């Protein structure tokens, strides 16, 4: 800690104290009924779908057996040629990466890419850490296998969400985040990148992906 002008001391004096507190202060208790918007854990994928659509995230609910064909068709319809994927046991297991390669896409895995390569990729196909039903958000978490830029730099982000990814409410997300230790970063994604800076005109696609699409597995 670097505090040449003793700001901490100044803060303490401003609060009328001369010594550090000896006991940890107790913050106000978080009354759940006040904060929680989603009360039940039943039907979370359906709620997630509804809310994601409201946020302009495309959603295709499907069975895992149909994923490969649907994914390939979707990417073809968007004129995608190159795809980036995280190194993900889940994506391997459901055969997504093999299906993409077999369909002729140029697929690069994050562990053999640099951030700079990501600028030349048409789309990314990723798993997610969590999906928040309350807000229809995707949550991605940084790790050696899953780079921060995967869901940021390519103009199209396709996420594959399993029902077990879903949490009900933001409260549950932050509880899980606190309990699951110290990832260097996670981002809650609630729609395509957008701005209303110019005369409040909504423009989709600024610095992040202009399209976010979810394949929601049953």
């Amino acid at each position, binding site marked *: 800690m670097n505090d040449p002008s003793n700001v901490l001391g*100044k803060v303490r004096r401003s609060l009328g104290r001369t010594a550090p507190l000896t006991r940890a202060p107790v913050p*106000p208790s978080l009354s759940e009924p*006040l904060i929680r918007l989603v009360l039940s854990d039943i039907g979370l994928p359906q709620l997630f779908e509804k809310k994601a659509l409201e946020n302009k995230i495309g959603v295709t609910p499907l069975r895992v057996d149909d994923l490969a064909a649907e994914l390939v068709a979707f990417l073809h319809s968007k004129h995608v040629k190159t795809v980036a994927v995280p190194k993900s046991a889940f994506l391997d297991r459901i055969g997504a990466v093999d299906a993409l390669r077999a369909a002729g896409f140029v697929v690069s895995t994050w562990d053999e890419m640099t951030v700079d390569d990501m600028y030349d990729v048409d789309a990314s196909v990723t798993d997610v850490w969590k999906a928040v039903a309350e807000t229809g958000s995707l949550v991605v978490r940084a790790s050696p296998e899953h*780079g921060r830029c995967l869901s940021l730099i390519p103009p199209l982000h396709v996420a594959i969400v399993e029902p077990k990814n879903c949490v009900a409410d933001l409260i549950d997300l932050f509880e899980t985040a606190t309990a699951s230790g110290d990832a260097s970063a996670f981002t809650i994604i609630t729609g395509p990148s957008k*701005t209303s800076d110019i005369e409040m005109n909504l423009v989709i696609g*600024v610095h*992040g992906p202009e399209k976010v699409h979810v394949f929601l597995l049953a």
Partner: protein
Amino acid sequence: MLSFVQTALQKRVDDFHAHERIDFDFHRSSVASSGNERLKRAIDNAVLRSDRGRSLKLLELPDSDKLRDLAGEIKQHTLDHLDYYLEQTAINVEKRGGQVHFASTGAEAKKIILDIVHKANCHNVIKSKSMVSEEIELAHVMEAAGINVIETDLGEFIVQIDHDKPSHIVTPIIHKDKESIAELFSNYFGTPYNCDPDALTKQAREYLRDVFRKADLGMTGGNFIVAETGDICCVENEGNVRQSMTTPRVLISLIGIEKLVPRMADLSVMLKLLARSATGQSMTVYSSIFSGVRKAGERDGPDEFHLVLMDNGRTEILASEEYRETLRCIRCGACLNACPIYRKIGGHSYGSVYPGPIGALLTPMFQGLGEYKDLPNASSLCGACYEACPVKINIPKHLISLRRDIVDQKISSPIERIIYRIWAWTYMATWRYKLISFGQKTVLRLQAGGSSWLKRLPPPGSGWTQVRDMPTPAAKTFREMWNAK
């Protein structure tokens, strides 16, 4: 050698500030903007929509009023124990590989940041929007020090290339129309004029993507810092904050010391209120929570992370038990959107980076009541700001308290003080009161000459009628009517 470079640098920064002079005349600036119909239309278009969006989105919450109470209590608790939480934050950030710097003043913060940039040998800085960097004019100082710094939020980018100033905390360019932005882009990029917002945004996107690719240092602010984990939370819609924490090898977050919350779980309260209050969204597009440096094996994210925690006048506000709650502010801009005065005079009239009701409080407290004595009076005290505030800062009450301080500290003009003295003296005896109200009524009715409005008063009343008409006094005073009853 390094110290020589730094001395030279410091000199350039000092020179930059040398010809900066406070020349703030609220009366002149607000009268000018309130006569600008185009500006008022642009502001109304933006802020009324945000204000309506806020009211609608708050209805989604079980009890938004109580949730705002809770948010206010969390922030107040943090402020009341700020020394503890700052220490906890510093320990946790360092545990996770970041470096923590405390800055007592804006000048100190700038020196710390310039030192980091030079020691890390960085040349291309991408900066995301933050109020605290506006507060200390960080981008200008970096430019003056010869660093290539680019504002990457679309609105701030437009402000930067136009050498303009933001006029709203959340939506910085609501004072500009698309035609003037199109002209600006056409001149700046040397491309044909096109005023379609989509095309303008695409053009900025293409340009800034190249900037992101080359950046070696990212600068962010922070909406919240979680003391128990040392995480920074930044919310945004565009994705440029994510770029800052993803691409460059060095990351600096400059944040005010008041931005802490104790627990990660507190974010669920804050995030549910912040976007709803600011823009009428349930959630902003990106809420990023990050800490320290990339972990072993991670292939993006910064190698070096610096958290600069700045005081710059905040401890003085903290020391006043009366005004301390002002520091709860989470910079959502809801009070600006709700304020009838802001809508008439726009953000630039307030003469500082914090406009609107919260600015009328913070600016005099940060910069001195003497220079900004008019701001606490730039309010009709209607209370819309208090009603909109997600952390329940009682803004009207504090504006009145600042007016009291102006009188106590004898900051108001001597003429004004004499007039009030005379007024008080007159009202202390019935006969003087009767005499004066009779005289006042007679003179004013004579001047009105039968009209029900007085367009112009002689000095010193002329200042008042310059921007409003005065109703002509009634033929009978209230006392006369009462006695005749």
